[in-house]
């Protein structure tokens, strides 16, 4: 499961831009991942400018 570290996230949307299955919602200061539809391809984790995403479990 991809975990969002809210204290690091800058809500910039770089993760959203690479998500191949469009499962990330970006509000003004909130990021939400639909874990059921996420394929865990890890593109979002790799591209995050501030390492706010992490795979766990």
């Amino acid at each position, binding site marked *: 499961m991809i975990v969002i570290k809210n204290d690091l996230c800058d809500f910039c949307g770089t993760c959203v*831009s*690479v998500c191949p299955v469009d499962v990330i919602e*970006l509000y003004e200061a909130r990021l939400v991942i639909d874990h059921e539809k996420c394929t865990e391809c890890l593109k979002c984790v790799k591209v995050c400018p*501030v390492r706010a995403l992490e795979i766990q479990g």
Partner: protein
Amino acid sequence: MKDYYDIIIVGAGPAGSTAARIAAQHGAKVLLLEKDREIGVPVRCGEAVGEKGLKRVLEPRPEWIANRIEAVRLIAPDGTVVKVHHEDIGFILDRKRFDYDLAMMAAQQGVKVVTKAYVYGLLKENDSIAGVKVLHLGKHFQIKAKIVIGADGVESRVGRWAGLKTNLGLKDIETCVQMTVSNIKLERSYCDFYFSAKLAPGGYLWVFPKNEHLANIGLGISGEFAAQKSPLEYLTEFIEQKFPEAAILTTVAGGVPCAQFMEKVVANGLMLIGDAAHQANPMTGGGIIQSIIASDEIAGRVAAEAIQKNDVSESALAAYAKEWDKVNGNSHRRSYRLKEAVYKLTDDDLNRTAATISKKAPDKQTIINIFKTALIQHPKLVPDIIKVFLGSD
């Protein structure tokens, strides 16, 4: 907000605000939606533009200009500095003020501007996009429109919801961090670009002064290389080393599309502009001017004309895609070819290039000669280099 507008634009950056203003000038009723609480904030940008480019699209206002740039310096991995002889000078913008004014200029033409409006889906009718679903101050709205324009940035989902492929591969996104840095000492008339795999692999690091003691400093690295070390880590290291006394006033992350020319930017009742349409220059990452040209000279007008003729089909809106290809397609494709070659250069290649160029007479230290020298192994790219940097498109 009413329940119908001719055109709804999602995103109030330079592209969205410009398209809104132009469409309204041509008689359309326009709603401009911004998800954040404040237009122009945060500034996810290096804030540099060329003077010629800016003057092509707008009469610059003094309050938009933080600083005038007289020259560009390229710094090689070994520290060799090449001062580039270049005629077009540049500006460091105050992007917050700039974006504010573009939205206000739209409002003055009758555009309804709404902030804190999060678009979470599209309405569809008979195979055409027919409006948006919005969350605004805790309430859900469905607002109809003949045309929806996605100006929702690099993370564009509006296009995807309409069936356009806007998601980027890792090699086609630059992942960036930018800081506003004070308590430093700079020559204010120089923009510095650092090229080195150690500082910014598959990208570059910039130091853009706002005055002698304040700069926009940032870097972008290719999405392919960010997993080992993040842009934030790269930039923090650079600033600690280069400016140990620095006070960092803002830190902002962001992504820039550095992708192939996007051919399909319209669907029935839908258009994409700006970063959402991957219009940033893939070589430099600069996108302000292209976004405004696409929105002002083309998309805003095409959208308003489609409303007047009551034909918002994909084939009617394709006039925008065709005109944009004519204006910028070849230049964009060349820049992409150059990017692919430049980002394969090793630090040794870059050092050799800087050494060769710095021995030439100052007036021969041009950007074209730099690229020609750097890409000497790629003679096929020389025409691309000349055309891209002479702006002959």
